[in-house]
């Protein structure tokens, strides 16, 4: 266990020592474990902002769709067909083919004919659209999607690549893999090689093979409490540390599978620094040969955290991006783009 993973023990101690009465009050008001709220103060720097975050987690997430240009050559056709069912949308300015649902129509969005025809992908939150844009895959790329199921990001990547180039979509879960197969088929994706595997094995199979890699990592979901309110009480600090260790193993494998000069996007639907900045910091230190670069996306992101309970993280982590429900109006989420330094 190297430096930053070991420092999580310091974080745990400081969090458990905190006796702040405001943390206790807010934890009890919103039904959270106290240690979570103590950390939110450390992330956001004021109790007002913490309360805004907790209030935002009480509100439902706006749903979004990405129109699939691989099946419908004219994206307007999909929107017009859904409008005839009573739906209304507002365009997301930073993703060409994506829309927030502003009014629901008569048929559920997961059951329309347009959905079955692969006319769109349905998202429970808007932030999921950011990682593929941050990776900016092109038709000439060989892409790894190392935690791909059920395929929201794989299908988006395929669309950005115009169904050309190569995407290796890997996931370990048998059940989720079937959903991935279903989604890729429905959406008319044809540039994917699907591999059911523990992605920690990918370097053994491919070596330094990929020009762009995405790790949409398994995480504790601390950014989507709107969707799963049980998350307020079900995850202990030890669970965060366990998730961190798994993420470090996966990210290490993904960095090792990426060719020199290539990009790696690491992302989670969690706002926990333990699963995000600490994971990236650990890999920067233990694997080496990578540096953080700013994600090339049009959406404004909050900077990555570099000071947490008095622990200094590498300054370059401020180039990573975060979203919070109270500042962005969608799920809490983290993205960090690493560049593998060439030979």
């Amino acid at each position, binding site marked *: 266990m190297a430096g930053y993973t070991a420092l999580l023990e310091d974080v745990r101690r400081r969090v458990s020592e905190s006796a702040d009465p405001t943390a206790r009050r807010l934890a009890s008001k919103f039904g959270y474990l106290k240690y979570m709220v103590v950390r939110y103060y450390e992330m956001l720097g004021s109790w007002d902002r913490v309360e805004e975050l907790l209030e935002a987690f009480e509100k439902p997430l706006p749903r979004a769709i990405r129109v699939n240009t691989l099946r419908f050559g004219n994206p307007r056709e999909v929107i017009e067909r859904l409008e005839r069912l009573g739906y209304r949308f507002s365009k997301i300015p930073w993703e060409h083919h994506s829309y927030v649902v502003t009014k629901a129509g008569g048929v559920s969005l997961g*059951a329309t004919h347009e959905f*079955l025809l692969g006319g769109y992908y349905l998202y429970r939150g808007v932030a999921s659209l950011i990682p593929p844009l941050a990776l900016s895959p092109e038709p000439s790329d060989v892409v790894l999607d190392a935690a791909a199921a059920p395929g929201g990001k794989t299908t988006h990547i395929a669309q950005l690549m115009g169904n050309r180039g190569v995407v290796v979509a890997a996931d370990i879960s048998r059940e989720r893999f079937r*959903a991935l*197969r279903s989604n890729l088929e429905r959406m008319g994706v044809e*540039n994917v*090689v699907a*591999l059911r595997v523990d992605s920690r094995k990918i370097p053994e199979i491919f070596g330094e093979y990929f020009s762009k890699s995405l790790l949409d990592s398994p995480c504790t979901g601390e950014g989507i409490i709107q969707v799963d309110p049980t998350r307020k009480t079900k995850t202990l600090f030890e669970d965060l540390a366990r998730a961190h260790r798994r993420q470090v193993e996966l990210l290490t494998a993904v960095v090792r599978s990426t060719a020199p000069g290539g990009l790696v996007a690491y992302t989670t639907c969690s706002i926990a620094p333990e699963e995000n900045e600490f994971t990236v910091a650990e890999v920067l230190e233990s694997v080496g040969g990578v540096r953080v670069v700013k994600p090339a996306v049009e959406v404004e992101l909050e900077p990555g955290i570099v000071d947490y309970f008095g622990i200094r993280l590498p300054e370059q982590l401020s180039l990573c991006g975060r979203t919070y429900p109270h500042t962005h109006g969608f799920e809490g989420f983290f993205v960090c783009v690493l560049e593998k330094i060439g030979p």
Partner: protein
Amino acid sequence: MRCVVGGGEVFEHVARLHGSRAAEALREYVPLYCAEPLEVYLMRAELMHAVERILKSGRFPYFAGFYAGRLRSDKPRFIPSHVLLDRLYKHIGHPVRAVKISDAGIRVVLYGRDVLAESVVECFEPVEAGEVVSITGPDGYVYAVGLSKISSCGEIGRLREKDVVAKTIFDLGWYLRSGTVPREARYKV
């Protein structure tokens, strides 16, 4: 799950069912045959290198490219996927071996029910009893694949409203009902 690359069987079936012009649409694709029963995927040559790496490591891809359909030892010997059919029709400019049905008919078919004569608005030759037939909507997209009960489009005029024109063996409602069931269970035949 085993997969092998190559072999032209799928192209022969496409040419037999949909004509040689339709088969031309697939010229740049390499077949990948996976699993039991035999599922056919078609991939562009670009994907071959990654597939070979996987095979060399002693593993098999779950699939690669797009799903083209299933090969069988009995009739129908090849069940094309709706994705393949949409692609073929786009290439040749019109459907073949197909019935176009009304919106009301589509709604019923998407629950897995059979196609009745009353919902057929157009029929595209050739059709052949016991062989596959595409079920398209008024928008031209393939919503289901069935087994034809008729041997020529002319027969439809002689059927009663509730007579079955095609037995549905796959419909897009499958993505909703059973998107995560094993692929072996996909077809009702």
